[in-house]
């Protein structure tokens, strides 16, 4: 009983937080977090009253939050709380399956287009987003063709294609390992290399928002560190959303952290605040591992 009350209050608190950082006059803590990058943060995407249904099951319940441009937002929460579901709304992957339904809005700035509106073409949204999935899913093609595929869809060819493939592989910290085997099948790479290949593939198309769904769960600490550095660098160019089970990772790479529980957003705050002084008890319990 008291728990559900808490969640009720929580979603209220969280709304005020997200409203705050959407405004020009932000609280000192938010401003501080913003200054780590350039100037005051601009909003890239706003989620408004988002509900999501798998058939009868409601997986997301009235989510309201903002994602700052050129910042990293981490989404944390226990397994099954809807992190992947939220992420997958952004590139409309849910549309591939029957009996899925969105309610509410995800407003993409600066255009103000509603990402999940029925008038919006999912194909266009997928051209503008990139996603790195929970499980590595390289194509059974050559290393080169994996990275080149998205570029070719966008009409890139010739020398430019080669250069961009190389650039993406370098960014994903994979170039040195694969530069002599670009023609080999991606399936000859190790699991961690395959995941970095998927990251390179996602970077290549220069998306507006990069969606990472636990990108490092299959990687060793060295590769993980490389990816984390990469994510940190990436925010100069793009907005990053990352789902992670790893608290340290969220703390290391993100500017904002969102905590989800049972399909609801419990708390959204600057990462520093979230980890040092969370407003809500449930968040604290989860972060400190005294959960349930």
């Amino acid at each position: 009983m008291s728990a559900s009350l808490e969640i009720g209050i929580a979603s209220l608190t969280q709304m005020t937080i997200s409203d705050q950082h959407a405004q020009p006059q932000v609280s000192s803590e938010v401003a501080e977090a913003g200054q780590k990058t350039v100037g005051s943060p601009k909003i890239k995407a706003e989620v408004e009253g988002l509900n999501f249904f798998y058939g009868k099951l409601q997986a997301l319940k009235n989510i309201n939050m903002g994602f700052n441009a050129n910042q990293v937002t981490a989404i944390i929460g226990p397994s099954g709380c809807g992190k992947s579901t939220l992420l997958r709304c952004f590139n409309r992957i849910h549309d591939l399956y029957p009996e899925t339904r969105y309610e509410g809005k995800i407003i993409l700035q600066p255009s103000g287009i509603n990402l999940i509106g029925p008038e919006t073409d999912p194909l266009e949204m997928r051209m503008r987003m990139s996603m790195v999935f929970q499980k590595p899913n390289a194509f059974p093609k050559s290393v080169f063709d994996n990275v080149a595929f998205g570029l070719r869809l966008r009409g890139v060819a010739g020398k430019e294609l080669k250069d961009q493939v190389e650039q993406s592989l370098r960014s994903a910290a994979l170039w040195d390992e694969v530069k002599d085997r670009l023609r080999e099948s991606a399936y000859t790479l190790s699991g961690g290399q395959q995941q970095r290949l998927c990251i390179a593939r996602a970077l290549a198309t220069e998306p507006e928002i990069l969606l990472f769904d636990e990108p490092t769960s299959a990687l060793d600490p060295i590769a993980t560190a490389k990816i984390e550095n990469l994510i940190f660098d990436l925010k100069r160019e793009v907005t990053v959303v990352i789902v992670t089970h790893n608290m340290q990772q969220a703390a290391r790479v993100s500017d904002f952290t969102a905590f989800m529980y049972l399909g609801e957003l419990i708390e959204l705050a600057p990462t520093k605040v979230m980890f040092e002084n969370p407003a809500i008890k449930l968040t604290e319990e989860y972060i400190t591992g005294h959960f349930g």
Partner: protein
Amino acid sequence: MSDFKRIIAKRKRQDFIFNIVGIMCTLVGIVTLGALLTDLLMDGLTRLNWTFLTSFPSRFAARAGILSSWVGTLLIMLVTALTAVPLGVSAGIYLEEYARKNWVTNLIEINIANLAGVPSIIYGLMALGLLVYQFKLGQSVLTGGLTLAFLILPIVIVATREALRTIPQGIREAAYALGSSKWQVVRHHLLPYSLGGTMTGIIIALSRAIGETAPLITIGALTFIAFLPPLPVTTQPPFLSIEWLWSPFSVLPIQMFNWVSRPDQDFVVNAAGAGLVLIVVTLLLNAIAILIRYRVRKRIKW
């Protein structure tokens, strides 16, 4: 402790017994097949030579050959493959990737599975009514090829769908996430990745069609034919001709059937020779299927 030992000993005994039974069962299959093959080889090899392959059938067993029937088989297979493959693969892709899953597609799905089990002579009857009488295609290579195409269409559809289903959903998601349209996903990913399975299914289907006799007799394939269909290439422009499609035909199994039903023992030997050719072609097809499957498995493992 000793209890354990007793239980383990009992299980080992069971394993041993099943091992023996299994070997026996396998042997029954292998020995029968071996016996059949040796019999066919002994009879057939004596007749198998160049003139046998290049002669028309004849009233005299020693002069009779299988030229018209193997050419017929080849042409029929060509028509069958050229129609059943594009139709079946497209239908399979449509059902698996495009069609919404509802009761209509469920009904179609059940029907296709059932069609694969319909006796081949029923297809012959259908083709006789539809292709020969209705569409007036005659008792031709075209009719024969289309009949067998109908026959194997369900097999090709099912094989295509099965092959598509082995592709992990994550691959589709990755392709869509990059902004591919449905057709681009099919064209650049699903088709190439499922090619091995689809090809295997197609070849198995063709090797079934190549031995079919009943539906072709039903539509009126000839049992004795002493000429070849017109050549597909001509000396005058446009150099290609489809005249052969309208030609009457015979095929290897019908030729065999015809020879076996004769009282003269020499003709039965001829039938064995033709059977040998048929079996070699079928085994060759199967070998190709296995080779493709092996090579694709080596390249793509999910």
